[in-house]
């Protein structure tokens, strides 16, 4: 069974699949799940802490959990009643409080048997604590299995992961870069990050080759990770990377490249306004762990009537099963609007087809009765009937995307986000500007104060030379007039001074933004998404700094930016301090990790880059995921010190 699951994973060595398989095994009492759908149901209860919840929820929906036999899923630190005839699966972090609570559960004899799964490795002493509690409660035989799952990271997409969602402020950009940080704090943060990355590579089943820049947090992480991997490989008895504990990595013949970068290498991208669907949702709506939370009645059209709509919160999950989402999450927004319209039309056509068939057969409302007839119409009808659930699901998804896209569009229109996007793209590619920055900042209609601050910061970051004092004062005054908070600027000034000293400033490449006419085609097709006045902008492919760094390292290109990067190979016998890469061939697989936080714009850029390269696989990870407003808050905190 292990070999079978390994083979099925080898066809696409994605970390999402590996995590998914690991979770499903765990939920099947740590045995490989049976393929036979008509198997006897075995019921169980799932207990998790918030970390476990964050790991499971992007990958498995409640329905999938139910299908696997999980009748209840409860938080560890909640009131739980004894259910004495049910096995319980725990999926928690091995922290002090969690262990105490588990011991308490054992003493209270809550469940019939206990399957303990720890998200990251549990220490021997804590294990003994559980052992003594089990002895005291006479429950040793009930503790059926104990596992270290090494899943201390959150997989959001099949090529994207973050480290954590709970307590992310502990390892945020602010936490790492604040001026008053102590060495002990930094050590703790680094340990947390390294632990998660270690779990990541254990789950992936591969030992990477690590490259990192010098002199920042990324280097610290790289050194620690190399050390940890090295120690584990040396310990032949307990090594996690040999034998049949490897899944996907066993079948890829080349080792992956692991590129660690620090957020400070590119500060403009997290502030950038964006134009692709997923990144837009993350920017303007409440989106985390693949879940969008919206208030209904948000962005109500003025024409819908002056009555205030009652606001209710709606939650939407954007999952891998949603084909429309998978296809369009990286598309420019106008394309998305068009596609939703197309999907709606296709759906309506299919619905009409089904209705027509039903009325032809004169079987309004009947279905199984048609089985007895052996005509061609029967085949059509049964296929139409069986595709009804599909159609309903499609309708649900169309509604979902209509609502989400409408909300996004409202934000775009009210804040004139297309103007910002175009301007910033021009700033970042150093093309000529057709409007002055001051005009946009002073324009009361264009965007929130935060938008204006973002724009200004990008200008400041990407300017070749700092603006003159008088210009700066003018800008500051305009920003203050627009009620902006200027504290991020203080921090960015420091940052800019520091990076100018350290290395060459980031080059954003020659991107170009071509507006496709002021009125988009969409308006003329009478669709729901009336984008009048919104420019239909077309992105030209360009590489953001992180993508460029990855490209250099992966293709073994020489570039002043990356030539100085350090090189670590945990499998080599002697600790390597050299930065001369031993591997001369371009890498086929790479993992990029941004210490200090990342966002969807970078992710999308990497995805586009991967598409242009045949046969390469790139995974994006970051210590936390923030959108521009969250990042600005952190910058503001840093600038206030």
């Amino acid at each position: 069974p292990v070999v079978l699951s390994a083979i099925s994973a080898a066809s696409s060595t994605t970390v999402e699949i590996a995590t998914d398989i690991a979770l499903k095994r765990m939920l099947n009492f740590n045995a490989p799940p049976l393929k036979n759908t008509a198997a006897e149901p075995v019921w169980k209860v799932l207990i998790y802490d918030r970390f476990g919840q964050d790991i499971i929820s992007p990958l498995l929906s409640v329905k999938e959990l139910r299908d696997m036999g999980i009748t209840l899923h409860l938080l560890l630190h909640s009131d739980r009643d004894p259910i004495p005839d049910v096995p319980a699966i725990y999926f928690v972090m091995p922290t002090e409080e969690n262990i105490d609570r588990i011991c308490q559960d054992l003493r209270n004899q809550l469940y019939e048997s206990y399957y303990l799964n720890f998200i990251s490795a549990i220490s021997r002493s804590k294990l003994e604590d559980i052992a003594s509690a089990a002895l005291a409660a006479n429950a040793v035989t009930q503790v059926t299995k104990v596992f270290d799952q090494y899943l201390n990271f959150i997989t959001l997409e099949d090529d994207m992961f973050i480290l954590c969602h709970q307590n992310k402020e502990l390892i945020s950009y602010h936490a790492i870069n604040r001026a008053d940080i102590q060495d002990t704090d930094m050590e703790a943060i680094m340990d947390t990050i390294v632990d998660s990355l270690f779990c990541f590579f254990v789950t992936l089943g591969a030992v990477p080759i690590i490259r990192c820049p010098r002199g920042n947090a990324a280097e610290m992480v790289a050194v620690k990770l190399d050390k940890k991997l090295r120690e584990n490989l040396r310990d032949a008895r307990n090594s996690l990377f040999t034998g049949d504990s490897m899944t996907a990595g066993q079948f890829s013949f080349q080792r992956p490249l692991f590129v660690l970068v620090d957020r400070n290498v590119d500060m403009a991208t997290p502030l950038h306004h964006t134009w692709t669907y997923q990144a837009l949702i993350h920017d303007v709506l409440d989106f985390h762990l693949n879940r969008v939370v919206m208030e209904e009645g948000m962005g109500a059209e003025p024409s819908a009537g002056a009555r205030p709509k009652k606001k209710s919160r709606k939650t939407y999950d954007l999952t891998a099963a949603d084909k429309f989402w998978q296809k369009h999450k990286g598309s420019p927004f106008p394309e998305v609007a068009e596609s939703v319209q197309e999907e709606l039309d296709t759906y309506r056509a299919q619905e009409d087809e089904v209705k027509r068939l039903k009325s032809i057969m004169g079987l309004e409302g009947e279905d199984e009765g048609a089985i007895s007839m052996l005509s061609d119409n029967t085949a059509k009808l049964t296929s139409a009937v069986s595709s009804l659930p599909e159609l309903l699901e499609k309708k649900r998804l169309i509604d979902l995307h209509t609502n989400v896209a409408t909300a996004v569009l409202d934000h775009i229109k009210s804040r004139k986000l297309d103007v910002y996007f175009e301007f910033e793209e021009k700033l970042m590619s150093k093309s000529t500007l057709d409007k002055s920055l001051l005009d946009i900042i002073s324009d009361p209609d264009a965007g929130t104060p935060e938008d204006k601050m973002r724009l200004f910061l990008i200008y400041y970051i990407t300017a070749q030379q700092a603006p003159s004092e008088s210009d700066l004062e003018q800008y500051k005054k305009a920003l203050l007039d627009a009620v902006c908070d200027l504290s991020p600027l203080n921090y960015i000034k420091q940052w800019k001074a520091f990076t100018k000293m350290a290395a060459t400033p980031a080059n954003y490449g020659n991107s170009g933004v071509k507006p496709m006419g002021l009125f988009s085609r969409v308006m003329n097709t009478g669709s729901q998404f009336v984008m009048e006045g919104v420019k239909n902008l077309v992105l030209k492919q360009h590489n953001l700094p992180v993508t460029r760094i990855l490209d250099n390292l992966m293709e073994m290109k020489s570039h002043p930016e990356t030539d100085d990067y350090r090189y670590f190979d945990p499998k080599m016998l002697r600790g390597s301090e050299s930065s001369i890469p031993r591997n001369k061939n371009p890498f086929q697989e790479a993992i990029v990790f941004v210490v200090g936080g990342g966002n969807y714009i970078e992710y999308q850029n990497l995805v586009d880059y991967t598409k242009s390269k045949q046969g390469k696989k790139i995974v994006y990870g970051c210590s936390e995921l923030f959108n521009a407003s969250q990042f600005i808050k952190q910058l503001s905190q840093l600038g206030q010190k």
Partner: protein
Amino acid sequence: MAVDITLLFKASVKTVKTRNKAIGIGFDSTKDEIFKRSRPKSGFSPRAKEVITNITKLKDFLLQHRKDYVSAGSLISSDLSRMTDNDRDQIDQDAQIFMRTCSEAIKQLRNEAEKQVISAQIKEHRGAVLDLIETYLKGVCKLYSEQRAIRVKRMFEQENQRLISEMNSLVDEVRQIEGKVVEISRLQEIFAEKVLQQEAEIDNIHQLVVGATENVKEGNEDIREAIKNNAGFRVWILFFLVMCSFSLLFLDWYDS
């Protein structure tokens, strides 16, 4: 990849035990064990498990006989494992009763669970357990109905075949008759033709006959005339002869 540290845990347990023994803490293990064993026999969980075992039995039964059930009337009539339709009907009936019983049992469990005063979590758990069992039952029912659908389909197919062959033979007969009718019509045509020909001839003959009759009538008349004439002529001949004879006689007398 997950690491099984259950053995490590058991080792920790041993460690703690020896440590505790050394310190002098002991645990009274026997009493609690006995308490644990006496779990309520008629509790929710054993009954739910019972329903599941029953459904599994049904599933095994269906799968076991599936091959025989589904097999069509093959040409190999010496196949001993073939089922008669009666057997199949029996299986259908049994299966349906069984499924109904299981469904009833599930409903009953659900009602009881509703009535019992228990915490919300246990209620939710039991509800979900019953949902799972129902889904399982539905899956097994699906097996059954698939089988049945195949059988019914095959039955209709057979009937269809029969109808087709009947129709075919009818069609053959009809064709034959059609051929014969065509023959007949052709012959009739010839017949009519001949009849027409003969009609002309008969007319001819009729004419001739009418003519002949006329002639014969005239002939008769002529013969009558002739007879009359003949008779008259005969009378005159007779008279002459008699006269002659008399004359002769006279003469003869005169002369004498």
